[in-house]
C-alpha cells in the first residue's frame, strides 16, 4: 500500500467525521430519539457549518478579516428563492429545480464577491473588515426595498412599494420588500445539507492543497515576499474571496429553501450573523477546517441544549465564549496549559521510571 501523507490523512478524518455524524443522526432519527426541536435544527446546522467553512477560507487561508459574509448568504438566498418561486410550476422535479437554484445562488454570490472584492481587497486589516461589514449592510438594506412582481407582461421592478409595480390583476408579487419572499418550495433536507458540506470541504481542502492555495497562503504569510516571487496578489486574493462568497451563497440557498418565508432581517443577514460566523471560525481555530465544523455545531447546539435554563442561556453562552477565548489564546493560559498538559505529565512519569 502506498503511504498516505499526513495532509491527506487529516483530510480523510475530516470527511469521516462528517459522514459518521450523518450516520449517527440518521440512526437517531430512525429510532425516534431526536426531539422535533433538534430535527428542525439539522438544516440550519448545515448552513452554519458551510458558512463557517467558507469564511475560514478568507480569514484562515487568505488572512483577511471579512465581516460581510452574511451579505453573500443573503444574495444566494434571495436569488435562488426568486428562481425557485418563478420556476415552481415549470420545473416540477424538486431535485432538478434545487440544483439549478443552487448553481444560480452560488454563481450570483460569487459574482457579487468579485464585484465587491475588486475595490475592497486593496484595503487591509481593520479597514477591509469595516468595508465588508458596510457592504453586507447595504445588501441587506437594498433587499428590503426591492419589489419584484410577475404578470403576463413580464417582470416589474420597483423600489417603493408593491402597488407601484402596476401589476395586472392576475399578477403576483414575488419579492415584497420587507416582507420578503413567501412560499419558497421547501426543498432543503438534511441529506442535501450534508452533501453540500462535503462538496464545500472538497472545494476548500483541494484548493488549499493546490498550487493556487499555496499562492494564497504565501500572500497571507508575507505579501511583499509573495509579490516579489511573482505571485499575482490581486488574482489570488480575488479567487479566495469569490470562492468563499460563492460557498456562502450556496449556504444561503440551503437556508432559503428551508423556510416558508424569507425575509432580510438584521438577525439573519445583518452584521450580527457575520460576526456569529466569525466566532465559529476563530473558536474552531483559524485556518482549521475541522475545527470550524466542530465549533459551528457546538455553538449552534449550545443555546438549544441550555434551553432548560431559559433566560440565562444566552448569558451563559456569552460567558462560555469569553472564557473559551481566554483559555485558548491568552499567553498566560497557554503557558499554564503547556506546563500541565497530559503529554508532558506522561513524559515526566516515563523519565521518572527510567531513572
Amino acid at each position: 500500500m502506498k503511504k498516505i501523507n499526513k495532509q491527506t490523512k487529516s483530510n480523510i478524518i475530516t470527511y469521516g467525521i462528517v459522514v459518521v455524524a450523518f450516520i449517527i443522526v440518521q440512526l437517531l432519527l430512525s429510532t425516534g430519539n431526536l426531539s422535533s426541536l433538534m430535527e428542525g435544527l439539522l438544516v440550519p446546522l448545515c448552513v452554519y457549518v458551510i458558512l463557517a467553512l467558507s469564511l475560514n477560507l478568507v480569514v484562515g487561508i487568505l488572512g483577511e478579516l471579512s465581516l460581510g459574509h452574511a451579505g453573500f448568504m443573503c444574495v444566494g438566498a434571495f436569488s435562488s428563492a426568486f428562481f425557485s418561486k418563478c420556476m415552481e410550476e415549470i420545473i416540477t422535479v424538486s431535485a432538478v429545480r434545487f440544483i439549478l437554484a443552487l448553481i444560480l445562488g452560488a454563481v450570483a454570490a460569487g459574482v457579487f464577491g468579485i464585484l465587491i472584492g475588486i475595490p475592497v481587497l486593496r484595503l487591509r486589516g481593520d479597514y477591509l473588515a469595516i468595508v465588508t461589514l458596510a457592504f453586507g449592510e447595504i445588501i441587506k438594506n437594498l433587499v428590503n426595498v426591492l419589489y419584484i412582481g410577475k404578470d403576463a407582461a413580464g417582470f416589474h421592478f420597483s423600489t417603493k412599494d408593491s402597488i407601484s409595480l402596476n401589476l395586472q390583476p392576475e399578477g403576483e408579487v414575488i419579492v415584497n420588500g420587507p416582507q420578503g419572499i413567501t412560499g419558497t418550495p421547501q426543498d432543503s433536507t438534511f441529506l442535501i445539507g450534508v452533501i453540500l458540506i462535503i462538496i464545500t470541504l472538497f472545494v476548500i481542502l483541494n484548493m488549499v492543497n493546490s498550487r493556487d492555495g499555496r499562492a494564497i497562503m504565501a500572500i497571507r504569510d508575507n505579501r511583499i515576499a509573495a509579490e516579489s516571487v511573482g505571485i499575482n496578489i490581486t488574482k489570488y486574493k480575488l479567487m479566495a474571496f469569490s470562492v468563499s462568497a460563492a460557498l456562502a451563497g450556496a449556504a444561503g440557498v440551503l437556508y432559503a429553501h428551508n423556510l416558508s418565508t424569507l425575509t432580510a432581517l438584521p438577525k439573519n443577514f445583518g452584521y450580527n450573523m457575520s460576526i456569529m460566523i466569525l466566532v465559529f471560525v476563530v473558536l474552531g481555530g483559524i485556518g482549521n477546517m475541522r475545527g470550524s465544523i466542530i465549533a459551528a455545531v457546538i455553538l449552534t447546539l449550545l443555546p438549544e441544549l441550555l434551553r432548560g435554563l431559559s433566560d440565562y442561556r444566552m448569558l451563559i453562552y456569552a460567558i462560555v465564549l469569553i472564557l473559551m477565548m481566554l483559555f485558548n489564546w491568552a499567553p498566560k493560559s497557554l503557558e499554564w496549559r503547556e506546563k500541565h498538559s497530559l503529554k508532558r505529565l506522561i513524559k515526566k512519569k516515563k523519565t521518572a521510571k527510567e531513572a
Partner: protein
Amino acid sequence: MSFLSYLINGISLGSVYAIIALGYTMVYGIAKMLNFAHGDVIMVGGYVVLISSTSLGCPPLLGVLIAVIFCTVLGVVIERVAYRPLRNASSSLAVLITAIGVSYLLQNLALLIFGANTKSFHSVVTVPAITLADGKMTISGETIVTILSCIVIMVVLTLFINRTKAGQAMLAVSEDKGAAQLMGINVNRTIGLTFAIGSGLAAIAGVLLCSAYPSLNPYTGSMPGIKAFVAAVFGGIGSIPGAMIGGILLGVIEILGKAYISSQLADAIVFAVLIIVLLVKPTGILGKKIQEKV
C-alpha cells in the same frame, strides 16, 4: 428653512456619533483593538440614568454623573478581566471575538435585569427650545445640549492629551508600546485610563442619545455603536479630530439621506459613502499613511 433644520438635526446626531467614535478611536489607537462592546456601554449608561432618575429619584444631573462613574468603572473592569490577558495573544482576532463575547454578555445581562421591552426614557435636558425666524424653525433643548457637550468634550480631550502627562503617556503608548515602557510609562495603567475615558464618554453619549430618541432597550447601543465605528474609520481611526469630523459628517449624511432620498435606504447611503471615502483615501480622511517596511 427645512434644509437648515435637517442640517442642525444631522449635526446633533453626528455629535452623538462623534462622542461614541472618540471612545472607539482612542481605544483603537492605543490598544489596536476594535472594541465591539463599546456600543453596549452606551446602553448601560442609558439604563443607569433611567434607574437613578425613576427608582432612586435622583435629579437628572446627578443621574448622569452616576452613569458616567458606573460606565467608567465598567470599562476598566472589562479591560482588566477580558482584554488585558489577551493583549499579547498571537492573533489580533482573539481579542476581537472576546469583545464580541463581552457585547453579548452586556446585552443579555440587560435583557435579564430589565426585560426585552422598550422603556421610555425621560429626557434629562432642561434647556428650553429656541425658536428662530418667527417660529418657522425650532431647535430643541436636546439638540443644543448635545452639540455644546460635543464641543466641550472635544476641547477638554484635546487639552488633556496635549497638555497633561497622562495624555502624553497615552500618545507615547499608542506610538510604540515597548519604547514607552522603557521611558518609564506604566503601559497597563495608561491603557486602563484610555478605557476609562472612552467608557465615560460612552455613558454621556448614551444619555444624549436616549434624550434625543427617548426609548431604551437592551439593543439600543449596537447600531449607534456600529455607526460610530464607521465614523471613526471614516475620519481615520486612531485620530481624535478625525473621529469628530467623521461623526458629524456621518450624522449629517444620515439625516439628509433620510429626508431627501429614502428613509429605508439611509443606512445604505451612510455605508456607501464610507466605502467611497475609503476607496479614495484608504486610511480615512485624517488617517496617517502607513509606510511599509520590508
